[in-house]
């Protein structure tokens, strides 16, 4: 196992990784920008190094500075967390060149799966269902219109260079498709420095269900069942749960096996997530693969009892997976609410500022992953996620009751947070019935 690693991230996921390191007896080095100086979680790492000013391009996104920090602190590996450089294959490659382990898949798998058109092709090869769509970047507006006519509207334009909801455009007819085409290209170029876009049939009222996998270097691969992340706003997940309330056990098996097939085809190593869309007719289709730890990984940890971040570290250090598929079961039900510093009453605009009151929920069934506390100043520069509230109970009904009471206890002032909207969602009849899709929040609020 490693004796010392560097964490190339900030906030709650940096703290999550520090915690795993502490429990495994690994020394951790935190890096921070000037905006994060003094944050309590930095003092929980064994060392902390300032790598640059607040601007992420000069700190958390700056590869030379991070590698340099890794060199002066003499670490054996880097954990990229999520966001920032986590899905940057070039960063993984530079780590390899510098003889520093990158805690994630190989750069080859990242490059392959990072190109969403290639990933789609791979899915087809691995006999994983995909939605009808293009198999190469669209060369022109006309080609897009022709494809759309074939696969029938509505359709969605997606960026080849990256996922996570950015650069996506939905079109319900040719006019809106043509209007969206160039905008989508530009957005793709801006977000991912790659103008390639492709087209797919757009599934309305779909659910987002994803499968967590773990694979080691010697060919062992297991899935840790699914997470349901259908509650989204602008393609951003808001509430996640496991198991999914909308899968039969047969469909569940199929989905998980498909995820394994795809991961094997990509020669995937370490923790990863295969996302699927689940249509109204209970058919599922490949979405994309996230080659990193997910924000919502705790729901899987709660129901399986398996610590995903610890396994990321062990796998990167070359340890074989000791988990056998037949021993991995889900127990009870877990739900996660993302607590963002955003004002739900004002179109979810970020709401940075100093926290003057912070009273956190606790008690049975409650897990809170957060790096903030009373006195913490939320910077407007970074992600608005300030914490994740996770509950784990015997069944979904009890989990909902527990989440309700935990949200009720949560007091964060004076900034606005998504606690209030999460309360509304969790109490909504449709959510309680387990009958929501990815458009539910936008239709309802």
């Amino acid at each position, binding site marked *: 196992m490693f004796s010392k690693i560097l964490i190339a991230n900030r906030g709650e996921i940096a703290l999550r990784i520090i915690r795993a390191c502490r429990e495994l007896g690994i020394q951790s*080095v935190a890096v921070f920008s000037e905006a994060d100086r003094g944050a309590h979680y930095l003092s929980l790492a064994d060392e902390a190094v300032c790598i640059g000013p607040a601007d992420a391009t000069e700190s958390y996104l700056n590869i030379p500075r991070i590698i340099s*920090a890794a060199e*002066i602190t003499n670490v054996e590996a880097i954990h990229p967390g999520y966001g920032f450089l986590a899905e940057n294959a070039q960063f993984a490659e530079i780590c390899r060149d510098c003889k520093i382990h990158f805690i994630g898949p190989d750069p080859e798998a990242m490059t392959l799966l990072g190109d969403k058109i290639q990933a789609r092709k791979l899915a087809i090869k691995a006999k994983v269902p995909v939605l009808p769509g293009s198999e190469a970047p669209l060369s022109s507006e006309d080609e897009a219109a022709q494809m759309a006519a074939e696969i029938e509207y509505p359709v969605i334009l997606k960026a080849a260079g990256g996922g996570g909801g950015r650069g996506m455009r939905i079109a319900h007819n040719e006019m809106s498709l043509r209007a969206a085409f160039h905008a989508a290209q530009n957005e793709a170029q801006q977000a991912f420095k790659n103008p390639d876009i492709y087209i797919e049939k757009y599934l309305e009222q779909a659910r987002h269900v994803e499968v967590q996998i773990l694979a080691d270097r010697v060919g062992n691969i297991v899935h840790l069942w699914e997470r349901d992340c259908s509650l989204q706003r602008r393609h951003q997940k808001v509430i996640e749960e496991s198991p999914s309330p909308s899968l039969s056990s047969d469909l569940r098996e199929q989905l998980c096996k498909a995820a394994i097939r795809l991961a094997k085809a990509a020669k995937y190593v370490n923790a990863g997530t295969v996302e699927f869309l689940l249509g109204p007719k209970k058919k599922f289709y490949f979405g994309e693969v996230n080659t990193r730890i997910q924000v919502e990984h705790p729901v899987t940890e709660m129901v399986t009892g398996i610590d995903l971040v610890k396994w990321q570290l062990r796998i990167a250090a070359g340890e074989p997976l000791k988990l056998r598929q037949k021993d991995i079961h889900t127990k009870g039900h877990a739900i996660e609410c993302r607590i963002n510093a955003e004002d739900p009453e004002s179109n979810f605009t970020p709401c940075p500022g100093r926290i003057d009151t912070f009273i956190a929920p606790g008690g049975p069934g409650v897990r809170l992953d957060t790096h903030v506390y009373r006195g913490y100043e939320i910077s407007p520069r970074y992600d608005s996620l300030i914490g994740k509230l996770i509950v784990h109970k015997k069944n979904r009904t009890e989990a909902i009751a527990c989440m309700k009471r935990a949200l009720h206890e949560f007091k964060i002032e004076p900034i606005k947070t998504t606690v209030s909207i999460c309360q509304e969602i969790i109490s909504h009849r449709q959510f309680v019935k387990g009958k929501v899709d990815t458009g539910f929040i936008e239709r309802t609020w």
Partner: protein
Amino acid sequence: MELDQIKELIEMMKANDLCELEIVDGQTRIALKRGSDVPAAPVVAITSAVMPEGVGNVPAANSASTGTALPAETIRQENLLEVTSPMVGTYFSAPSPNADTFVEIGSKIEKDQVVCIIEAMKVMNEIKSEVAGTVKEILVSNGSSVEFGQPILLVEP
């Protein structure tokens, strides 16, 4: 906090025409307001709450491992200027092991004069001073690690 000290603070406020003063130091907090809510006089707030409160004495994070000086949070001698490291890396005081050091105490330096090398990712970066003056102190020892923003030299203008 002694009464005497408070008295002295008030004297300072009066002498300098301060109308508000607040000091937080660990668990001690002192807040003073003077005169009616007068306009006129400039409102000056003296705070020593550099850190987010509630974290009290967390040091400037544990600072780079390798025994380097802490980032200068403490107040330096008045009127001295700092040359800080613009990057994370390893500090070298001379261009090569046997060469003369770029500067020593007492050296007069110009703006844009190279004062040291910081190695980052095998690249030797020449660091230029943004200030001119006389070097009064060298805060980092040869071969040690520096983090972003860490003071390297103190210069008297």
